[in-house]
């Protein structure tokens, strides 16, 4: 997407400058990075009758209740409005059985007569306005439509469907506008015609139900989504990981593992999942990239991705024991992706074909989370480590990579402290480290010709203020906001310490959810 949001927003993608025929370690272009655009949606609050803080310690970080709401397919009700226009008695009874899973939040009185309640479409909007300052110039000339530094940009702007469709089917689906790349980011090749500002973004449509098999209490479901890990329940996996909002202008490290958003909104996937005895979560899914025309029609520049993939298996297993106010999770996730690089990512020859050879990326991740609910605060510790094994048959053959095999590692260690009910203040700190095999063909740093590795590391710190979290105060369930001040410090950037500090970023942002 051009969009972002990646990590916000648009989501969740990263702009990667594709080397022809190359690997998913894409040279970073502009960091209009697509970070996960995530969301605490007012439509969810209307549906559940819960204040935002029931599901979120922070936007979009989930509490145990929030994870179960997602697990149950975004269908749980309880608010003053009907859950769906198709609600039935049978559906209500089935949901009652699930209510035991909802014991993580204080019960909210639901209207006695559900049939008399009105139905409001679960539609929401989101906008983030951010000020970006980087230690060195943010935007290379020509900078239009921005300044070289100190820019205020509205991006992303999103519309959502967030909530139940039927008693057992719900959806989270997002359409996003992302501010355009600066003029200097245009390649001057015919491929520029495929850049878009509007695109589809995160989408996750689910069916969920329950069953009892002997001693096993099961919640099970099917998910159809467009971004590996967007369906996950924990904020340790890439799609919903910190930072939740990022500048659309500041540069970010060029290298990332494939599972960290490379194919966000470029794939379609379907999978099955289950939560056993409210303890063990298991999922298996499969993804495949959309065709060139489909991606382009949905607002994604196909050439911003590394190519097209074969069917890619994805797995997830997580054990979440919980006792009293404590919740622990340890898990693993991963994906195997065969990527056929574009024949001509510049589109000079007019072809959208891919090469027969492929590069194989095997991503194996492990993650853990500890969450503690105090009387007036949430403490959350998170960690994730992804090791990617790259077999670069296609890129090595085309001289896009110097090595036939490489490895890439990504580590994140994070602590978050959310203090207060309404007028909540959230402090978050994160250490990140990306390191891997030296490859002079894949990794080029204009500031340091000797840099040939993907290595980047540093720290992030953020303080956020959320006015409405725990009560049905003014704004609920129609409006909320998150004001954040974020600082990112780089020890090393794209394989070098030279010029790394120029990328240190201050991002002051206001995030509105309506």
């Amino acid at each position, binding site marked *: 997407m051009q969009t972002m949001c990646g990590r916000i927003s648009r989501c969740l993608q990263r702009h990667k400058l594709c080397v022809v025929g190359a690997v998913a370690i894409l040279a970073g272009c502009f960091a209009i990075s697509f970070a996960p655009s995530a969301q605490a949606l007012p439509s969810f609050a209307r549906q559940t009758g819960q204040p935002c803080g029931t599901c979120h310690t922070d936007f979009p970080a989930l509490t145990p209740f929030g994870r179960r709401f997602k697990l149950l397919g975004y269908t749980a009700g309880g608010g003053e409005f009907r859950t769906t226009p198709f609600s039935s008695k049978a559906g209500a009874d089935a949901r009652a059985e699930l209510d035991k899973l909802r014991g993580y939040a204080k019960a909210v009185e639901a209207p006695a007569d559900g049939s008399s309640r*009105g139905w*409001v479409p679960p*539609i929401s*909007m989101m*906008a983030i306005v951010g000020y970006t300052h980087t230690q060195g110039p943010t935007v290379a000339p*020509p900078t*239009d*439509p921005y300044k070289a530094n100190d820019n205020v940009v*509205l991006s992303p*702007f999103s*519309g959502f469907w967030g909530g139940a469709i039927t008693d057992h089917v719900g959806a989270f689906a997002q359409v996003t*506008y992302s*501010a*355009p790349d*600066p*003029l*200097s980011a*245009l*390649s*001057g*090749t015919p491929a*520029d015609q495929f850049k878009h*500002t*509007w695109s589809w973004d995160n989408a996750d449509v689910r069916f969920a139900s329950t069953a009892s098999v002997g001693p096993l209490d099961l919640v099970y479901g099917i998910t159809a989504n467009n971004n590996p890990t967007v369906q996950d329940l924990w904020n340790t996996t890439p799609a919903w990981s910190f930072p939740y909002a990022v500048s659309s202008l500041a540069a970010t490290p060029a290298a990332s593992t494939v599972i960290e958003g490379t194919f966000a909104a470029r794939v379609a996937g379907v999978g099955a999942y289950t939560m056993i005895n409210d303890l063990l979560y298991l999922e298996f899914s499969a993804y495949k990239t959309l065709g060139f025309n489909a991606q382009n029609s949905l607002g994604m520049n196909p050439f911003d991705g590394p190519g097209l993939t074969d069917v890619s298996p994805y797995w997830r297993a997580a054990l979440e024991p919980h006792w009293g106010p404590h919740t622990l999770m340890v898990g693993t996730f991963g994906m195997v992706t065969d990527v056929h690089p574009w024949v001509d990512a510049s589109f000079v020859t007019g072809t959208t074909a891919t090469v027969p050879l492929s590069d194989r990326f095997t991503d194996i991740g492990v993650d853990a989370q500890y969450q503690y609910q105090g009387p007036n605060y949430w403490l959350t510790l998170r960690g994730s480590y992804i090791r990617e094994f790259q077999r670069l048959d296609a890129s090595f053959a085309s001289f896009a990579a110097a090595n036939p095999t490489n490895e890439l590692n990504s580590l994140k260690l994070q602590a978050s402290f959310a203090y207060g009910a309404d007028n909540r203040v959230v402090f978050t700190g994160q250490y990140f480290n990306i390191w891997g095999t030296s490859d002079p063909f894949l990794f080029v740093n204009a500031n340091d010709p000797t840099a040939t590795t993907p290595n980047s590391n540093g720290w992030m710190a953020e303080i956020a203020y959320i006015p409405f979290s725990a009560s049905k105060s003014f704004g609920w369930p*129609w*409006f909320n906001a998150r004001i954040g001040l974020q600082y990112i410090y780089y020890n090393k950037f794209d394989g070098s310490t030279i010029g790394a500090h120029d990328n240190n970023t201050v991002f002051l942002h206001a995030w509105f959810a*309506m």
Partner: protein
Amino acid sequence: MNKLSFATATALVLVIAPPVRAADLPLKAPATPFVERFTWTGCYLGAHVGGAWMRNSVTDPVLLVQDNANLGGPGFTTVGPTTVGVNQDGVVAGGQIGCDYQFPQNFVLGIEGAASGGTMKGSRVVALPDSPPDTALVSVKTDFVTALTGRAGYAVDHWLFYARGGVAWANSKYSVTGTFNGGAGLGLPFDFEGLSIRTGWTVGAGAEWAFAQDWSARLEYDYYDFGSHTATMNDIVNGPGPLSFKTTMQTVKLGVNFHMWGWQ
């Protein structure tokens, strides 16, 4: 929503009620039915869709191409600016959030933020007189419009007639493309690209009708003026150059709003 105003109800009682006799007088006056008055006071969230028409005065695409050092060069210096018009049209669709307050005299004041995606495109072919029959295609595309406005209106029960005004922004992309032969078959392609985030003002007027509990629909006309702006037009091969745009826009939008917090 109550259909009758209190005044109307009272008048009906006076006209229709039979004469009261002393023997009919109750010991205690019965409670008078009170018809709550409809008010536009409250906040709302909604969506809209409509058409948009934009006019651009572009100065000077001919000079941008012919005087470029790598194309026409010094020998092709264009004399004087020339302005050409490029019209765009398309569809706008988006959302809005706002709040209103209705005074006892039925005057309504409010504030609203709106954002729209747009498909407004337009282009025009211009001749390059120094190298006939060469031409350049000037294109403009606008895909995002936002506005922060205040509105003032007068309420007539379930109808609100209003005018609005405020600040607006529009994101546009420009291009000047073609092939420069210079009369000698040079065959030099050019592709100048530019981007802008324009700031301007807007005024408009409309009528809104509360047609159901919590819901209203409206029809609105808006005029936007984004003033003049000089964009940097960059060609990766031939280099950058300036191009000026003077832009206005008109929209007609049909919207629907959901009124929050017990609007009545």
